[in-house]
């Protein structure tokens, strides 16, 4: 056993030494600088680095200077970086409108000159994408369902289930077991139908007010620790909507929440993370 354990700072230094970057620029997003009077942004980014805009003819890259890529085993550090990253993207959004957001930890080498060249190389693409995303934002819609109220009352509405349950009560042990199985299967079937119905209703309700919609994997490795155990996730959508349609979208979600046991989580406005095209392919 040793007396000296490396402090988090020392571990950090060791980790950073593994991957140094020559004249690196950490890239947050690409923005339309013609939408703002001054192409500047005064905010601090990941690790307190000053953030600025590298501009090439109306297209700007929001960056900070960096000498390393960001990697760590320290999870608290990861969270701080992510929150700061998003704060910078939010500040850029407020200043320049909808940005083209990059994935976390996107680092380019070669300094401002390299960034400028990169912007120029993809200039047409950036102008087109920025124009198409202007005034639209991404929203995330998460449909959760607590099936308990449904399970309590469904037998009143479903003849087959009611019949199975009634026969179950009047039967002897062997037969009873079989009928129990059958009524459970019927209940599962009805719940499956209800889930599909709710997801379809949600999709139908929001489709008229969104420009684009994509269904996302409900098996995200990230789970909100406050998620109630009673509620299951039915469907997750990422949608692209005009900022003028945000209220209409919210109103439509209200009609879905009226269904018993249903909860909707509505987040945004985010930059078009899901809809942003890959660049340079």
């Amino acid at each position: 056993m040793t007396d000296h354990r490396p402090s988090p700072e020392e571990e950090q230094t060791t980790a950073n030494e593994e991957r140094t970057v020559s004249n690196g620029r950490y890239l947050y997003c690409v923005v339309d600088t013609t939408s703002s009077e001054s192409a500047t942004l005064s905010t601090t980014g990941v690790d307190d680095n000053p953030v600025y805009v590298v501009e090439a003819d109306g297209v700007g890259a929001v960056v900070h200077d960096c000498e390393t890529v960001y990697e760590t085993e320290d999870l608290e550090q990861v969270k701080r970086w992510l929150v700061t990253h998003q704060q910078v993207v939010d500040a850029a959004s407020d200043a320049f409108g909808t940005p083209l957001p990059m994935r976390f930890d996107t680092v380019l080498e070669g300094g401002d000159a390299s960034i400028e060249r990169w912007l120029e190389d993809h200039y047409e693409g950036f102008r087109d994408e920025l124009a198409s995303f202007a005034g639209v934002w991404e929203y995330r819609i998460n449909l959760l369902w607590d099936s308990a109220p449904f399970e309590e009352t469904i037998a009143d509405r479903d003849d087959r289930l009611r019949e199975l349950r009634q026969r179950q009560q009047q039967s002897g042990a062997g037969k009873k077991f079989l009928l129990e199985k059958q009524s459970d299967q019927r209940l599962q079937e009805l719940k499956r139908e209800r889930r599909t119905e709710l997801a379809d209703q949600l999709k139908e309700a929001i489709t008229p007010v969104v420009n684009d919609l994509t269904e996302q994997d409900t098996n995200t490795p990230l789970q909100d620790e406050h998620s109630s155990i009673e509620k299951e996730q039915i469907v997750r959508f990422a949608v692209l909507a005009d900022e003028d349609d945000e209220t209409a979208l919210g109103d439509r979600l209200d009609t879905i929440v009226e269904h018993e046991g249903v909860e909707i989580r509505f987040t945004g406005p985010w930059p078009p993370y899901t809809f942003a095209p890959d660049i340079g392919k």
Partner: protein
Amino acid sequence: MEPTKDETHAIVEFVDVLLRDGAVIQADVIVTVADIPLIGISLRAAIAGMTTMTEYGLFEEWDAAHRQQSEAFTTSPTADRRED
């Protein structure tokens, strides 16, 4: 219903988003992007205890920054949300 950005589930959402989505760049000068080592960390672990961010004041700080920005965007002095 209005969209939120400053509740726990919204933070969970953007962490997920930032690690998985966003434009991926392919360029000669790119140092790192898709195969970032962070992805190697169990995302579930990364998110565990997300609410402890409040202990560092990060969440409040973010929330406050949002509200401040929102106020700058609206003419109503009582509004605390962005209403475009």
